[in-house]
């Protein structure tokens, strides 16, 4: 998953300038520190260059004339220069680290808090793996760029300029000679980079395909086993694997060329300077000390050029990563509450749908003209085949989605006109899929209401028949749950979910197939708890097993997004319509 997407991420950023300013605005919180870093970079470069330059006077003025006293004194100066440089570099690194991490943390938090505010629809339509990789790969890239690449790039560029000036100062002619090799280096770098980029892209693509295949096969491993499909899968895998091998070889070869080619070019540069410098020295074009300093510079000259190329790539990748993060941050959140939105408080739980029409996609209407009314404390059941629109109705009540037409009223307030938080707090949902968080059993139940006392948590667990199994866990209520409660059975996880809803104690309860993953006997137990929980609350229930809803105050039969029958269990049976058939099918044995 992580690598699958990097095809996109390693591409060029689309809006370099805009992204740059955006990153800059994150950095600007630490303006003062950035300024200090800038000074430190300049200081370290000056000391570095000066240190190399000092070898010229040392040789020319002291060693060749034989002035030992002067030599020692100058060496002290040199030592002082070096020391300053080292200290400046160290502080610079520490500050960069701090700023880099602070910035990245800010981005990460922005990303997360934005994510929490995205509409449910977003999560249904986007791959979780892709979102995850924004937290991992993309943030990593930015963090690398901020702590290493950016400052290195700055210091490489400045060093390059500094060296150039000093070289020019020592000997313009030798500088000219050096300059002849520089374009050659740039050309080689470009050639290699463009080649390797091409093959890298191909490599990333086949890596993406392979990783996709791996992910799918590993997560479906149990099915592979059941069908004895291992050999076939291995063969398919081998094909993709070999393809990746061929692509990678080229990519690695060309990208690997970069460093040694540069290194050897810089050696060649060194050689040329030695020869030309020596010739010049013989004809008094340059002094020996100057040549020595020049040789040192030429060593340092190759490095920044070579680094600039790779740093540039890193920074491009970071920009692309940042764009992917900003993409989420810029995503439209849930529609904000109206300015005059009402806070629902102490409501009774009167729920009404008036002529509601809705679909997830514009071209497909799911609910057509659905109206229902649940008086406070009423128990309403929704019945119908898969795809009839039962779950959709429950999705509309907490405003996970907004209706197209018609309206939904709670205690007479249209839900569009109340604050979303207070709306959602007035109801609790128990879904078919169980969802738990890393943390203790107690914390998971308390998720329903954060200020619930331990006693209230236990009380809720008792009510929903979760208490007895929790007691038997190794650490009772303090048992740590990990991986979505992988150490619990499906039924146990659901019991915790129900307890969580119980502790929330809302006036409205939405149960979407809450007990369908639970065996009948446990269901019976839970049902008692649920019945108790539903007392005095308005409940909307979806259940496959009709037995669980026969005591509902009102049963609505949905078909293709419309309510086709409604009434109590007895009334509907009398009707001998759809509900009657459903019941007959479910309870009649295959004779």
């Amino acid at each position: 998953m992580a690598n699958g997407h990097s095809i996109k991420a390693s591409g060029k950023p689309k809006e370099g300038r805009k992204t740059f300013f955006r990153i800059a605005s994150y950095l600007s919180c630490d303006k003062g520190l950035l300024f200090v870093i800038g000074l430190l970079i300049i200081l370290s470069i000056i000391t570095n260059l000066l240190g190399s330059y000092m070898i010229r006077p040392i040789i020319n003025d002291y060693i060749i004339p034989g002035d030992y006293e002067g030599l020692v004194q100058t060496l002290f100066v040199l030592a002082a220069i070096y020391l300053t440089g080292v200290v400046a570099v160290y502080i610079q690194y520490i500050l960069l680290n701090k700023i880099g991490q602070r910035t990245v943390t800010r981005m990460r938090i922005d990303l997360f808090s934005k994510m929490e505010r995205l509409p449910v629809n977003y999560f249904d339509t986007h791959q979780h793996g892709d979102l995850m990789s924004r937290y991992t790969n993309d943030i990593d890239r930015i963090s690398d760029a901020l702590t290493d690449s950016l400052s290195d790039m700055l210091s490489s560029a400045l060093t390059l300029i500094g060296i150039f000036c000093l070289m020019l100062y020592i000997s313009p002619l030798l500088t000219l000679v050096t300059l002849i090799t520089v374009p050659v280096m740039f050309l080689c770098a470009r050639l290699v980079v463009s080649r390797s980029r091409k093959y890298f892209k191909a490599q990333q693509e086949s890596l993406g395909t392979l990783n996709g295949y791996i992910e799918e096969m590993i997560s479906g491993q149990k099915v592979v086993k059941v069908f004895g499909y291992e050999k076939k899968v291995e063969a398919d895998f081998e094909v993709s694997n070999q393809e990746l091998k061929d692509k990678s070889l080229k990519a690695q070869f060309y990208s690997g060329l970069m460093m040694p080619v540069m290194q050897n070019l810089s050696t060649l540069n060194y050689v040329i300077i030695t020869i030309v410098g020596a010739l010049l020295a013989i004809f008094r074009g340059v002094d020996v000390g100057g040549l020595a300093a020049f040789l040192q510079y030429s060593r340092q000259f190759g490095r920044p050029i070579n680094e600039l190329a790779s740093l540039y790539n890193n920074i491009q990748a970071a920009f692309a990563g940042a764009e992917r993060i900003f993409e989420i941050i810029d995503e439209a959140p849930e529609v904000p509450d109206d300015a005059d939105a009402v806070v629902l408080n102490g409501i009774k739980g009167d729920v009404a749908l008036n002529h509601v029409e809705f679909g997830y996609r514009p071209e497909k209407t799911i609910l057509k003209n659905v109206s229902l009314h649940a008086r406070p404390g009423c128990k309403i059941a929704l019945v119908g085949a898969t795809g009839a629109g039962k779950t959709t109705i429950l999705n509309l009540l907490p405003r996970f989605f907004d209706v197209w037409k018609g309206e939904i009223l709670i205690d007479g307030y249209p839900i569009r006109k109340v604050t979303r938080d207070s709306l959602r707090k007035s109801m609790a949902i128990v879904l078919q899929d169980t969802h738990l968080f890393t943390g203790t059993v107690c914390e998971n139940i308390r998720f329903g209401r954060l200020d619930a006392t331990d006693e209230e948590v236990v009380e809720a667990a008792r009510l929903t028949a979760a208490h007895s199994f929790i007691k038997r866990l190794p650490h009772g209520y303090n048992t740590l749950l990990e991986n979505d409660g992988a150490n619990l059975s499906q039924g146990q996880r659901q019991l915790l979910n129900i307890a969580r809803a119980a502790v929330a104690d809302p006036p409205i309860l939405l149960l979407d197939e809450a007990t369908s993953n639970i065996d009948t006997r446990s269901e019976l137990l839970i049902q008692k708890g649920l019945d108790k929980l539903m007392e005095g609350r308005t409940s909307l229930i979806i259940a496959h097993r009709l037995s669980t809803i026969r005591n509902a105050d009102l049963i609505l039969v949905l078909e293709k997004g419309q309510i086709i029958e409604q009434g109590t269990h007895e009334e509907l049976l009398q009707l001998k319509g759809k509900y009657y058939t459903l019941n007959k099918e479910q309870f009649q044995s295959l004779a």
Partner: protein
Amino acid sequence: MKKYWEILREYKISLLISPFLVLITVLCETIQPTFMAQIIDDGVMQRDLSVVTQTGLYMVLISIAGLCISVINIYISSKTSIGFGTDLRSELFDKIQQLSFNDIDHFSSASLVTRLTNDISRIQQIVLMSMRLLLRAPMMLIMAVFFVVRINLELAMVLLAAIPVLSLSIFVILRKGFPLFMKVQQQLDRLNGVVRENLINIRVVKSFVREDFETKKFVKSSEELRDLVVRASNIVVAMFPVMQLVMNVSIVAILWIGGYKVIGGELKVGELISFVNYVMQVLMSLMMLSMIIMTFARASASSERIVEVLDTKPSLANTPEGLSDKNRIQKGEVSFRNVSFRYAGGEEDVLRNVSFDVRQGETIAVVGATGSAKSSMVQLIPRLYDVTGGELLIDGVNVKDYHLDELHAHIGMVLQKNELFTGTILDNLKWGKQNATMEEVEEATRAAEAHDFILSFQDGYDTQLGRGGVNVSGGQKQRLCIARALLLKPKILILDDSTSAVDSETELKIRRNLNALLSDTTVFIITQRVNTMQSADRVIVLEDGEVNAIGTPANLLETSDVYQEIYHSQQMTLP
């Protein structure tokens, strides 16, 4: 680790040649300052032009030779490391295919995926770096020392003294920094865990209005991470300045002692300059070495994760008897004899003392409370797990004495959590039987009540399914999975609560079809629905890992309390 060497052995020649190539390139580089000294001392100082041109020519030739050799090494090392990575990936993937359910549960599939992708890439990178850079730094060091010793032993002592100081400080820094980086990794995992959880649980978070609560949790975690990273990096970033400091001190010392010697006539100017050049070379190579060490440290965790899987002995394999592949499943009779079962690492048996016999063609409903080990029990039949006590017989032969392929070919199983794969519907169905004809496929899909909805899709059987079958509904998915199993024409069919998302109307039809199509097939159905139980030939009631009752539905309704309870919980008053 043994596996690594086995794979690397194939690349023996490359691995042996590569160090020599590195040595030659290093030699080509380190000899240059010595030539340079010659040019200055014998050419410039003596005003001898021919020395300059001749020595200069050597330098150019050597440098070009160095380039050529290093290109060869790059090719060899790319080929070796990628070959190694590819082989290791195949090895690991094949290994995973052999793993049993128990092993997969143990590793978790998410972590297996990471191991196959990121971890392998990292190891591959290490092989590459080792071949290119690992030997370079020490060789550079040795060559540099060799040349400086030749110039002047006393002066060389400065460099020789600097090296241990430098090594020690690098060691100390890494030693202190590494454990912190491990902590960083853990904290990062925790943080990503929070994100993943929120992605999955977004409906829960939103419905309980816990956005701020979760964000606070996240902020706390990420601030902890930030502080950890800063702490760890602050130690490690000291490395570069420390190295620079040591080297700069050496340069000052060399200029001091060397200058004194030049003044005294013991040393030539060119030699002194080349000395300083050597110190620079050593510094560069050491910096590279420290970077490699960091990468190695990170990769060691990856390696551990890979080796862990490679070294796992598949807990389920063909027995010698099974390998002989002489036993055939003919009828599909199943017998449990005092079977007990415990998950690997589990603390107690989930199944105890289970015994029963099932005749050919019987339909057995397995019922019981959540956690009564219904799924565990039926998963023993195709040896997805092995019994830990007693024995399990099919047609009177111990399941362990069948070849695994034989078991899988005749036992169809629809799991509770089913997977469809990327590909067309037809591709997916043919998992059951690769050479199935279209008639066979349709027969199966009709029986599973899937044919009609498949045809309702625009591309029919060629409809492309997304990963995990995202574009079909839960009920449709289950029906496709059932059809897939039916295509096998199994002798034994196991349905593990596999119609939960199918409405009762359709379920009833499917069961009727099954009876017609597979009248000789022994069927196990785990179910919650009373009418399914009632229609079975016999019912096994499991309670807390033990058989509570066994018998015909009518019989059990009279005698078994547990069954009565289940029955009455659902049985309604119907007119």
